[in-house]
Protein backbone atom coordinates (compact mmCIF):
# COMPACT_ATOMS: atom_id res chain seq x y z
CA UNK A 1 0.00 0.00 0.00
CA UNK A 2 2.84 2.36 0.85
CA UNK A 3 4.22 1.91 -2.64
CA UNK A 4 0.90 2.99 -4.10
CA UNK A 5 0.77 6.23 -2.15
CA UNK A 6 2.75 8.35 -4.63
CA UNK A 7 0.33 7.26 -7.36
CA UNK A 8 -2.71 7.88 -5.21
CA UNK A 9 -1.40 11.31 -4.36
CA UNK A 10 -2.05 12.39 -7.92
CA UNK A 11 -5.70 11.62 -7.45
CA UNK A 12 -6.19 12.82 -3.90
CA UNK A 13 -4.57 16.26 -4.33
CA UNK A 14 -3.27 16.13 -0.78
CA UNK A 15 -0.46 18.48 -1.64
CA UNK A 16 -2.55 21.32 -2.99
CA UNK A 17 -2.55 24.83 -1.69
CA UNK A 18 -5.59 26.81 -0.57
CA UNK A 19 -8.03 27.78 -3.30
CA UNK A 20 -7.81 31.40 -2.17
CA UNK A 21 -4.26 31.52 -3.54
CA UNK A 22 -5.61 31.23 -7.08
CA UNK A 23 -5.77 34.78 -8.50
CA UNK A 24 -9.32 35.99 -8.93
CA UNK A 25 -8.92 36.72 -12.68
CA UNK A 26 -7.84 33.10 -13.27
CA UNK A 27 -10.84 31.70 -11.41
CA UNK A 28 -13.16 34.13 -13.19
CA UNK A 29 -11.68 33.27 -16.58
CA UNK A 30 -12.12 29.56 -15.88
CA UNK A 31 -15.75 30.05 -14.85
CA UNK A 32 -16.52 32.30 -17.82
CA UNK A 33 -14.77 29.99 -20.30
CA UNK A 34 -16.73 27.03 -18.95
CA UNK A 35 -19.99 28.92 -19.35
CA UNK A 36 -19.05 30.10 -22.86
CA UNK A 37 -18.11 26.60 -23.93
CA UNK A 38 -21.35 25.12 -22.58
CA UNK A 39 -23.43 27.82 -24.26
CA UNK A 40 -21.50 27.41 -27.51
CA UNK A 41 -22.02 23.64 -27.46
CA UNK A 42 -25.73 24.07 -26.73
CA UNK A 43 -26.22 26.75 -29.38
CA UNK A 44 -24.23 24.90 -31.92
CA UNK A 45 -25.85 21.58 -32.75
CA UNK A 46 -23.80 19.43 -35.03
CA UNK A 47 -24.38 20.48 -38.62
CA UNK A 48 -27.06 18.71 -40.56
CA UNK A 49 -25.32 16.75 -43.24
CA UNK A 50 -26.54 15.29 -46.46
CA UNK A 51 -27.03 11.56 -46.18
CA UNK A 52 -23.88 9.93 -47.42
CA UNK A 53 -24.05 6.69 -49.34
CA UNK A 54 -23.04 3.56 -47.50
CA UNK A 55 -19.79 2.45 -49.04
CA UNK A 56 -18.92 -1.18 -49.67
CA UNK A 57 -17.19 -2.81 -46.72
CA UNK A 58 -13.42 -3.17 -46.80
CA UNK A 59 -11.99 -6.55 -47.65
CA UNK A 60 -11.05 -8.93 -44.84
CA UNK A 61 -7.36 -8.38 -45.64
CA UNK A 62 -7.75 -4.59 -45.39
CA UNK A 63 -9.52 -4.93 -42.09
CA UNK A 64 -6.69 -7.11 -40.83
CA UNK A 65 -4.20 -4.36 -41.67
CA UNK A 66 -6.17 -1.32 -40.54
CA UNK A 67 -7.33 -2.93 -37.30
CA UNK A 68 -3.71 -3.76 -36.47
CA UNK A 69 -4.51 -7.47 -36.34
CA UNK A 70 -7.71 -7.05 -34.31
CA UNK A 71 -10.46 -7.92 -36.78
CA UNK A 72 -12.79 -8.94 -33.97
CA UNK A 73 -12.69 -5.46 -32.46
CA UNK A 74 -13.25 -4.01 -35.92
CA UNK A 75 -16.24 -6.31 -36.44
CA UNK A 76 -17.77 -5.27 -33.14
CA UNK A 77 -17.30 -1.59 -33.94
CA UNK A 78 -18.64 -2.14 -37.46
CA UNK A 79 -21.84 -3.55 -35.92
CA UNK A 80 -22.37 -0.32 -34.05
CA UNK A 81 -21.42 2.02 -36.87
CA UNK A 82 -23.64 0.16 -39.32
CA UNK A 83 -26.47 0.29 -36.82
CA UNK A 84 -25.92 4.05 -36.43
CA UNK A 85 -25.65 4.56 -40.18
CA UNK A 86 -29.32 5.37 -40.55
CA UNK A 87 -28.76 8.07 -37.92
CA UNK A 88 -26.04 10.17 -39.45
CA UNK A 89 -25.28 13.39 -37.58
CA UNK A 90 -28.29 15.60 -37.97
CA UNK A 91 -30.19 13.24 -40.25
CA UNK A 92 -32.27 10.13 -39.83
CA UNK A 93 -32.79 7.82 -42.75
CA UNK A 94 -35.71 5.43 -43.01
CA UNK A 95 -34.65 1.84 -43.65
CA UNK A 96 -36.49 1.98 -46.97
CA UNK A 97 -33.90 4.44 -48.24
CA UNK A 98 -30.93 2.26 -47.36
CA UNK A 99 -29.12 0.30 -50.01
CA UNK A 100 -29.83 -3.25 -48.84
CA UNK A 101 -27.21 -4.85 -51.08
CA UNK A 102 -24.56 -2.86 -49.22
CA UNK A 103 -26.12 -3.51 -45.85
CA UNK A 104 -25.97 -7.21 -46.69
CA UNK A 105 -22.34 -6.92 -47.78
CA UNK A 106 -21.45 -5.27 -44.48
CA UNK A 107 -23.30 -7.86 -42.43
CA UNK A 108 -21.61 -10.66 -44.35
CA UNK A 109 -18.17 -9.13 -43.83
CA UNK A 110 -18.80 -8.68 -40.11
CA UNK A 111 -19.88 -12.31 -39.81
CA UNK A 112 -16.86 -13.43 -41.79
CA UNK A 113 -14.57 -11.67 -39.31
CA UNK A 114 -16.60 -12.58 -36.23
CA UNK A 115 -18.29 -15.93 -36.98
CA UNK A 116 -19.39 -16.38 -33.37
CA UNK A 117 -21.16 -13.03 -33.31
CA UNK A 118 -24.96 -13.02 -33.42
CA UNK A 119 -25.32 -9.27 -33.81
CA UNK A 120 -25.39 -9.13 -37.65
CA UNK A 121 -28.04 -11.87 -37.79
CA UNK A 122 -30.14 -10.10 -35.20
CA UNK A 123 -29.80 -6.89 -37.21
CA UNK A 124 -30.72 -8.69 -40.43
CA UNK A 125 -33.77 -10.51 -39.08
CA UNK A 126 -35.17 -8.08 -36.53
CA UNK A 127 -33.95 -4.68 -37.73
CA UNK A 128 -33.50 -4.56 -41.46
CA UNK A 129 -35.89 -7.49 -41.90
CA UNK A 130 -38.65 -5.57 -40.13
CA UNK A 131 -38.85 -2.96 -42.87
CA UNK A 132 -42.23 -2.49 -44.51
CA UNK A 133 -41.00 -3.57 -47.93
CA UNK A 134 -41.44 -7.23 -48.93
CA UNK A 135 -38.54 -7.23 -51.42
CA UNK A 136 -36.12 -5.93 -48.81
CA UNK A 137 -37.53 -8.27 -46.18
CA UNK A 138 -37.04 -11.27 -48.45
CA UNK A 139 -33.49 -10.20 -49.18
CA UNK A 140 -32.67 -10.08 -45.49
CA UNK A 141 -34.39 -13.39 -44.77
CA UNK A 142 -32.47 -15.09 -47.57
CA UNK A 143 -29.29 -13.64 -46.15
CA UNK A 144 -30.17 -15.11 -42.75
CA UNK A 145 -30.78 -18.51 -44.33
CA UNK A 146 -27.46 -18.48 -46.20
CA UNK A 147 -25.61 -17.54 -43.04
CA UNK A 148 -27.56 -20.15 -41.05
CA UNK A 149 -26.29 -22.89 -43.36
CA UNK A 150 -22.70 -21.95 -42.48
CA UNK A 151 -23.23 -22.60 -38.77
CA UNK A 152 -26.71 -24.09 -38.23
CA UNK A 153 -26.37 -25.09 -34.60
CA UNK A 154 -25.45 -21.62 -33.44
CA UNK A 155 -27.61 -19.57 -35.80
CA UNK A 156 -30.86 -21.55 -35.74
CA UNK A 157 -32.86 -18.97 -33.79
CA UNK A 158 -32.48 -16.37 -36.53
CA UNK A 159 -33.80 -18.74 -39.16
CA UNK A 160 -36.69 -19.63 -36.86
CA UNK A 161 -37.45 -15.93 -36.65
CA UNK A 162 -37.14 -15.69 -40.43
CA UNK A 163 -39.74 -18.46 -40.77
CA UNK A 164 -41.99 -16.53 -38.43
CA UNK A 165 -41.64 -13.34 -40.50
CA UNK A 166 -42.26 -15.27 -43.72
CA UNK A 167 -45.38 -16.87 -42.25
CA UNK A 168 -46.96 -13.91 -40.46
CA UNK A 169 -45.63 -10.78 -42.15
CA UNK A 170 -44.93 -11.83 -45.71
CA UNK A 171 -47.72 -14.40 -45.57
CA UNK A 172 -45.61 -16.65 -47.76
CA UNK A 173 -46.15 -20.16 -46.44
CA UNK A 174 -43.87 -21.76 -49.01
CA UNK A 175 -40.98 -19.58 -47.92
CA UNK A 176 -41.71 -20.25 -44.26
CA UNK A 177 -41.75 -23.99 -44.93
CA UNK A 178 -38.47 -23.74 -46.81
CA UNK A 179 -36.83 -22.10 -43.79
CA UNK A 180 -38.42 -24.54 -41.36
CA UNK A 181 -37.29 -27.47 -43.47
CA UNK A 182 -33.79 -26.08 -43.50
CA UNK A 183 -33.95 -25.85 -39.71
CA UNK A 184 -35.06 -29.47 -39.39
CA UNK A 185 -32.43 -30.77 -41.77
CA UNK A 186 -29.42 -28.85 -40.52
CA UNK A 187 -29.87 -27.81 -36.89
CA UNK A 188 -29.05 -31.12 -35.24
CA UNK A 189 -27.45 -30.01 -32.01
CA UNK A 190 -29.24 -31.04 -28.80
CA UNK A 191 -29.10 -27.37 -27.84
CA UNK A 192 -31.61 -26.63 -30.59
CA UNK A 193 -35.07 -26.89 -28.98
CA UNK A 194 -37.46 -29.38 -30.46
CA UNK A 195 -40.08 -26.73 -31.27
CA UNK A 196 -37.70 -25.28 -33.82
CA UNK A 197 -37.34 -28.63 -35.57
CA UNK A 198 -41.09 -29.24 -35.35
CA UNK A 199 -42.00 -25.92 -36.91
CA UNK A 200 -42.06 -27.42 -40.39
CA UNK A 201 -44.72 -29.98 -39.45
CA UNK A 202 -47.24 -27.37 -38.40
CA UNK A 203 -46.45 -25.10 -41.30
CA UNK A 204 -47.08 -27.99 -43.69
CA UNK A 205 -50.35 -28.68 -41.96
CA UNK A 206 -51.23 -25.01 -42.55
CA UNK A 207 -50.49 -25.59 -46.22
CA UNK A 208 -52.77 -28.64 -46.26
CA UNK A 209 -49.79 -30.92 -46.85
CA UNK A 210 -51.15 -33.35 -44.31
CA UNK A 211 -49.38 -36.42 -45.61
CA UNK A 212 -45.98 -34.77 -45.37
CA UNK A 213 -46.85 -33.37 -41.96
CA UNK A 214 -47.91 -36.80 -40.77
CA UNK A 215 -44.74 -38.41 -42.04
CA UNK A 216 -42.53 -35.81 -40.41
CA UNK A 217 -44.36 -35.97 -37.12
CA UNK A 218 -44.32 -39.75 -37.10
CA UNK A 219 -40.62 -39.80 -37.88
CA UNK A 220 -39.94 -37.31 -35.14
CA UNK A 221 -41.81 -39.36 -32.55
CA UNK A 222 -40.13 -42.56 -33.71
CA UNK A 223 -36.68 -41.04 -33.63
CA UNK A 224 -36.67 -40.78 -29.83
CA UNK A 225 -35.63 -37.15 -29.95
CA UNK A 226 -38.72 -36.13 -28.01
CA UNK A 227 -37.95 -37.16 -24.44
CA UNK A 228 -40.31 -34.94 -22.50
CA UNK A 229 -43.46 -37.00 -21.72
CA UNK A 230 -45.82 -34.00 -21.95
CA UNK A 231 -44.38 -32.96 -25.27
CA UNK A 232 -44.59 -36.55 -26.52
CA UNK A 233 -48.25 -36.70 -25.51
CA UNK A 234 -49.00 -33.37 -27.18
CA UNK A 235 -47.32 -34.36 -30.45
CA UNK A 236 -48.96 -37.79 -30.42
CA UNK A 237 -52.33 -36.06 -30.08
CA UNK A 238 -51.53 -33.85 -33.08
CA UNK A 239 -50.48 -36.92 -35.07
CA UNK A 240 -53.75 -38.60 -34.20
CA UNK A 241 -55.64 -35.50 -35.37
CA UNK A 242 -53.82 -35.59 -38.67
CA UNK A 243 -54.43 -39.30 -39.17
CA UNK A 244 -58.10 -39.18 -38.28
CA UNK A 245 -59.29 -36.69 -40.83
CA UNK A 246 -56.76 -35.45 -43.33
CA UNK A 247 -58.17 -32.33 -44.93
CA UNK A 248 -61.05 -32.29 -42.46
CA UNK A 249 -61.90 -30.25 -39.43
CA UNK A 250 -59.32 -31.90 -37.17
CA UNK A 251 -56.51 -31.28 -39.61
CA UNK A 252 -57.51 -27.67 -39.87
CA UNK A 253 -57.43 -27.54 -36.07
CA UNK A 254 -53.83 -28.74 -36.11
CA UNK A 255 -52.89 -25.88 -38.34
CA UNK A 256 -54.82 -23.27 -36.38
CA UNK A 257 -53.31 -24.28 -33.08
CA UNK A 258 -49.92 -23.39 -34.33
Amino acid at each position, binding site marked *: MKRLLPILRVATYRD*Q*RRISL*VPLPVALLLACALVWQTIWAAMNPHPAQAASDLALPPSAASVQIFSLGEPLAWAKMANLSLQAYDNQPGISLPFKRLDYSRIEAWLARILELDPDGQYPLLAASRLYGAVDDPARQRRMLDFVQRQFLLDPNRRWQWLAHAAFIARHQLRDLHLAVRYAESLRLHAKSPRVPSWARQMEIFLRADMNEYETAKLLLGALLASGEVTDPSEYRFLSGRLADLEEAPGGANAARVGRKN
Partner: protein
Amino acid sequence: MNPFRDHLPGTWTIARFALIEALRGKLALAVVAVALLGLGLSAFLGEMAITESTRIQGSVLAAFNRIAAALMVVSFVIAGLTREQADKGLEMLLSQAIPRASYVIGKLTGYALLAWLTAAVFSAPLLLYAPPLNVAAWSLSLALELTLVAAAALACALVLGQSALSLLMVVAFYVLSRIMPSILAITASPVGPIDSPGFRVMGWVMGCIGALLPGLDRFASAVWLWDGAAAWAQMPAILLQFVIYLPLLCSAALFDFYRKNL
Protein backbone atom coordinates in the same frame (compact mmCIF):
# COMPACT_ATOMS: atom_id res chain seq x y z
CA MET B 1 2.70 49.47 -12.87
CA ASN B 2 1.34 46.78 -15.17
CA PRO B 3 2.26 43.30 -13.88
CA PHE B 4 1.54 41.75 -17.26
CA ARG B 5 3.90 44.12 -19.06
CA ASP B 6 6.54 43.71 -16.34
CA HIS B 7 6.67 39.98 -16.79
CA LEU B 8 6.36 39.98 -20.57
CA PRO B 9 10.12 39.51 -21.21
CA GLY B 10 10.21 36.54 -18.81
CA THR B 11 7.14 35.02 -20.44
CA TRP B 12 8.63 35.44 -23.88
CA THR B 13 11.93 33.90 -22.76
CA ILE B 14 10.07 30.82 -21.50
CA ALA B 15 8.20 30.61 -24.80
CA ARG B 16 11.40 30.95 -26.79
CA PHE B 17 13.13 28.24 -24.80
CA ALA B 18 10.18 25.89 -25.19
CA LEU B 19 10.49 26.30 -28.95
CA ILE B 20 14.27 25.98 -28.93
CA GLU B 21 13.97 22.81 -26.84
CA ALA B 22 11.70 21.35 -29.51
CA LEU B 23 13.99 22.24 -32.38
CA ARG B 24 17.17 21.10 -30.61
CA GLY B 25 15.49 17.93 -29.41
CA LYS B 26 15.27 16.81 -33.01
CA LEU B 27 11.50 17.17 -33.03
CA ALA B 28 11.83 19.18 -36.24
CA LEU B 29 13.72 16.33 -37.83
CA ALA B 30 11.10 13.83 -36.66
CA VAL B 31 8.28 16.01 -38.02
CA VAL B 32 9.95 16.22 -41.43
CA ALA B 33 10.64 12.47 -41.41
CA VAL B 34 7.02 11.61 -40.58
CA ALA B 35 5.77 14.09 -43.20
CA LEU B 36 7.98 12.35 -45.79
CA LEU B 37 6.71 8.97 -44.62
CA GLY B 38 3.14 10.14 -45.17
CA LEU B 39 4.07 11.42 -48.60
CA GLY B 40 5.57 8.05 -49.47
CA LEU B 41 2.49 6.23 -48.23
CA SER B 42 0.18 8.43 -50.29
CA ALA B 43 2.39 8.03 -53.37
CA PHE B 44 2.22 4.26 -52.94
CA LEU B 45 -1.57 4.34 -52.69
CA GLY B 46 -1.71 6.63 -55.72
CA GLU B 47 0.18 4.05 -57.73
CA MET B 48 -2.35 1.40 -56.78
CA ALA B 49 -5.39 3.53 -57.64
CA ILE B 50 -7.03 3.08 -61.02
CA THR B 51 -8.82 6.41 -60.91
CA GLU B 52 -9.07 9.52 -58.69
CA SER B 53 -5.48 8.93 -57.65
CA THR B 54 -4.94 12.60 -56.71
CA ARG B 55 -7.96 12.61 -54.43
CA ILE B 56 -6.94 9.33 -52.86
CA GLN B 57 -3.43 10.57 -52.25
CA GLY B 58 -4.55 13.93 -50.88
CA SER B 59 -7.25 12.49 -48.61
CA VAL B 60 -5.05 9.78 -47.16
CA LEU B 61 -2.17 12.17 -46.66
CA ALA B 62 -4.37 14.78 -44.97
CA ALA B 63 -5.86 12.22 -42.57
CA PHE B 64 -2.46 10.70 -41.82
CA ASN B 65 -0.78 14.08 -41.31
CA ARG B 66 -3.54 15.32 -39.05
CA ILE B 67 -3.22 12.44 -36.61
CA ALA B 68 0.56 12.26 -36.84
CA ALA B 69 0.91 16.00 -36.16
CA ALA B 70 -1.41 15.84 -33.16
CA LEU B 71 0.39 12.84 -31.66
CA MET B 72 3.81 14.38 -32.17
CA VAL B 73 2.88 17.69 -30.59
CA VAL B 74 1.16 15.96 -27.67
CA SER B 75 4.03 13.61 -26.95
CA PHE B 76 6.59 16.42 -27.17
CA VAL B 77 4.67 18.75 -24.84
CA ILE B 78 4.06 16.04 -22.25
CA ALA B 79 7.58 14.67 -22.38
CA GLY B 80 9.09 18.15 -22.06
CA LEU B 81 6.94 19.24 -19.14
CA THR B 82 7.17 16.02 -17.14
CA ARG B 83 10.92 15.94 -17.64
CA GLU B 84 11.17 19.53 -16.42
CA GLN B 85 9.17 18.66 -13.32
CA ALA B 86 11.26 15.57 -12.64
CA ASP B 87 14.54 17.47 -13.11
CA LYS B 88 13.37 20.18 -10.69
CA GLY B 89 13.75 22.69 -13.53
CA LEU B 90 10.27 23.95 -12.74
CA GLU B 91 11.19 24.72 -9.14
CA MET B 92 14.31 26.48 -10.30
CA LEU B 93 12.36 28.63 -12.73
CA LEU B 94 9.73 29.55 -10.20
CA SER B 95 12.38 30.44 -7.62
CA GLN B 96 13.09 33.42 -9.88
CA ALA B 97 10.81 36.45 -9.85
CA ILE B 98 8.50 34.86 -12.37
CA PRO B 99 4.80 34.44 -11.55
CA ARG B 100 3.22 31.09 -12.20
CA ALA B 101 0.99 32.62 -14.87
CA SER B 102 4.06 33.71 -16.83
CA TYR B 103 5.36 30.16 -16.79
CA VAL B 104 2.09 28.68 -18.07
CA ILE B 105 1.46 31.39 -20.66
CA GLY B 106 5.09 31.33 -21.78
CA LYS B 107 5.05 27.56 -22.22
CA LEU B 108 1.72 27.73 -24.02
CA THR B 109 3.04 30.42 -26.38
CA GLY B 110 6.10 28.32 -27.18
CA TYR B 111 4.03 25.21 -27.79
CA ALA B 112 1.55 27.19 -29.89
CA LEU B 113 4.41 28.37 -32.10
CA LEU B 114 5.58 24.79 -32.34
CA ALA B 115 2.04 23.72 -33.29
CA TRP B 116 1.87 26.29 -36.09
CA LEU B 117 5.30 25.26 -37.42
CA THR B 118 4.27 21.60 -37.32
CA ALA B 119 1.03 22.43 -39.14
CA ALA B 120 3.01 24.26 -41.83
CA VAL B 121 5.38 21.34 -42.35
CA PHE B 122 2.55 18.80 -42.52
CA SER B 123 0.49 20.99 -44.85
CA ALA B 124 3.22 21.65 -47.40
CA PRO B 125 3.06 18.20 -49.13
CA LEU B 126 -0.66 18.68 -49.71
CA LEU B 127 0.14 21.42 -52.19
CA LEU B 128 1.10 18.61 -54.56
CA TYR B 129 -2.52 17.45 -54.68
CA ALA B 130 -4.86 20.37 -53.91
CA PRO B 131 -5.24 24.09 -54.74
CA PRO B 132 -3.19 26.40 -52.49
CA LEU B 133 -6.18 28.30 -51.12
CA ASN B 134 -7.86 25.08 -50.02
CA VAL B 135 -4.63 23.84 -48.46
CA ALA B 136 -4.33 27.18 -46.66
CA ALA B 137 -7.76 26.71 -45.08
CA TRP B 138 -6.87 23.16 -44.06
CA SER B 139 -3.52 24.29 -42.72
CA LEU B 140 -5.00 27.14 -40.67
CA SER B 141 -7.56 24.79 -39.19
CA LEU B 142 -4.87 22.20 -38.40
CA ALA B 143 -2.76 24.87 -36.70
CA LEU B 144 -5.72 25.86 -34.50
CA GLU B 145 -6.43 22.21 -33.71
CA LEU B 146 -2.81 21.52 -32.80
CA THR B 147 -2.74 24.60 -30.58
CA LEU B 148 -5.76 23.33 -28.68
CA VAL B 149 -4.23 19.87 -28.41
CA ALA B 150 -0.94 21.37 -27.17
CA ALA B 151 -2.86 23.38 -24.56
CA ALA B 152 -4.70 20.24 -23.46
CA ALA B 153 -1.38 18.41 -23.18
CA LEU B 154 0.07 21.28 -21.16
CA ALA B 155 -2.90 21.25 -18.78
CA CYS B 156 -2.77 17.47 -18.34
CA ALA B 157 0.98 17.37 -17.81
CA LEU B 158 0.83 20.14 -15.20
CA VAL B 159 -2.14 18.65 -13.38
CA LEU B 160 -1.12 14.99 -13.45
CA GLY B 161 2.66 15.27 -13.61
CA GLN B 162 3.01 11.77 -15.06
CA SER B 163 3.84 11.27 -18.70
CA ALA B 164 1.98 7.99 -19.34
CA LEU B 165 -1.20 9.09 -17.60
CA SER B 166 -1.11 12.51 -19.25
CA LEU B 167 -0.58 10.97 -22.68
CA LEU B 168 -3.54 8.65 -22.18
CA MET B 169 -5.74 11.51 -21.03
CA VAL B 170 -4.87 13.75 -23.95
CA VAL B 171 -5.26 10.98 -26.52
CA ALA B 172 -8.67 10.16 -25.03
CA PHE B 173 -9.57 13.87 -25.11
CA TYR B 174 -8.49 14.11 -28.75
CA VAL B 175 -10.23 10.96 -29.92
CA LEU B 176 -13.45 11.80 -28.06
CA SER B 177 -13.43 15.35 -29.41
CA ARG B 178 -13.27 13.97 -32.93
CA ILE B 179 -15.83 11.19 -32.63
CA MET B 180 -18.31 12.71 -30.18
CA PRO B 181 -20.96 13.53 -32.85
CA SER B 182 -21.05 9.86 -33.87
CA ILE B 183 -21.38 8.76 -30.25
CA LEU B 184 -24.19 11.26 -29.68
CA ALA B 185 -25.89 10.04 -32.85
CA ILE B 186 -25.79 6.48 -31.51
CA THR B 187 -27.17 7.52 -28.12
CA ALA B 188 -30.03 9.33 -29.89
CA SER B 189 -30.66 6.45 -32.27
CA PRO B 190 -34.18 5.02 -32.11
CA VAL B 191 -32.58 1.61 -32.68
CA GLY B 192 -30.96 1.75 -29.26
CA PRO B 193 -32.85 0.85 -26.07
CA ILE B 194 -34.08 4.44 -25.68
CA ASP B 195 -36.49 3.61 -22.86
CA SER B 196 -33.85 1.91 -20.76
CA PRO B 197 -32.76 4.12 -17.83
CA GLY B 198 -29.15 3.01 -18.29
CA PHE B 199 -29.19 4.06 -21.93
CA ARG B 200 -30.76 7.40 -21.01
CA VAL B 201 -28.18 8.04 -18.31
CA MET B 202 -25.38 7.16 -20.70
CA GLY B 203 -26.87 9.47 -23.32
CA TRP B 204 -27.07 12.26 -20.76
CA VAL B 205 -23.49 11.66 -19.58
CA MET B 206 -22.26 11.63 -23.17
CA GLY B 207 -24.17 14.85 -23.83
CA CYS B 208 -22.45 16.50 -20.85
CA ILE B 209 -19.03 15.28 -21.94
CA GLY B 210 -19.76 16.45 -25.48
CA ALA B 211 -20.68 19.92 -24.20
CA LEU B 212 -17.29 20.19 -22.47
CA LEU B 213 -15.22 19.02 -25.42
CA PRO B 214 -14.20 21.15 -28.38
CA GLY B 215 -15.79 20.21 -31.68
CA LEU B 216 -12.59 18.97 -33.31
CA ASP B 217 -14.71 16.95 -35.75
CA ARG B 218 -15.29 20.22 -37.63
CA PHE B 219 -11.59 21.02 -37.91
CA ALA B 220 -9.26 20.23 -40.84
CA SER B 221 -11.47 17.90 -42.82
CA ALA B 222 -9.81 16.26 -45.82
CA VAL B 223 -12.91 17.15 -47.86
CA TRP B 224 -11.82 20.78 -47.72
CA LEU B 225 -8.90 20.07 -50.02
CA TRP B 226 -11.42 19.89 -52.85
CA ASP B 227 -14.08 22.18 -51.46
CA GLY B 228 -12.42 25.40 -50.46
CA ALA B 229 -15.70 27.30 -50.24
CA ALA B 230 -16.99 24.91 -47.56
CA ALA B 231 -13.69 25.18 -45.72
CA TRP B 232 -13.68 28.98 -45.54
CA ALA B 233 -17.40 29.02 -44.74
CA GLN B 234 -16.72 26.95 -41.62
CA MET B 235 -13.73 28.99 -40.55
CA PRO B 236 -15.61 31.56 -38.42
CA ALA B 237 -17.20 28.80 -36.34
CA ILE B 238 -13.83 27.10 -35.96
CA LEU B 239 -12.16 30.35 -34.92
CA LEU B 240 -14.90 31.02 -32.39
CA GLN B 241 -14.52 27.52 -30.96
CA PHE B 242 -10.78 28.12 -30.70
CA VAL B 243 -11.26 31.49 -28.99
CA ILE B 244 -13.61 29.93 -26.47
CA TYR B 245 -11.69 26.75 -25.76
CA LEU B 246 -8.12 28.01 -25.53
CA PRO B 247 -8.88 30.26 -22.51
CA LEU B 248 -10.75 27.36 -20.94
CA LEU B 249 -7.73 25.05 -21.15
CA CYS B 250 -5.34 27.82 -20.19
CA SER B 251 -7.35 28.88 -17.14
CA ALA B 252 -7.84 25.26 -16.07
CA ALA B 253 -4.08 24.72 -16.21
CA LEU B 254 -3.47 27.98 -14.34
CA PHE B 255 -6.10 27.21 -11.73
CA ASP B 256 -4.49 23.89 -10.86
CA PHE B 257 -0.96 25.23 -11.16
CA TYR B 258 -1.65 28.02 -8.66
CA ARG B 259 -2.93 25.45 -6.19
CA LYS B 260 0.01 23.12 -6.67
CA ASN B 261 2.41 22.82 -3.73
CA LEU B 262 5.80 22.65 -5.38
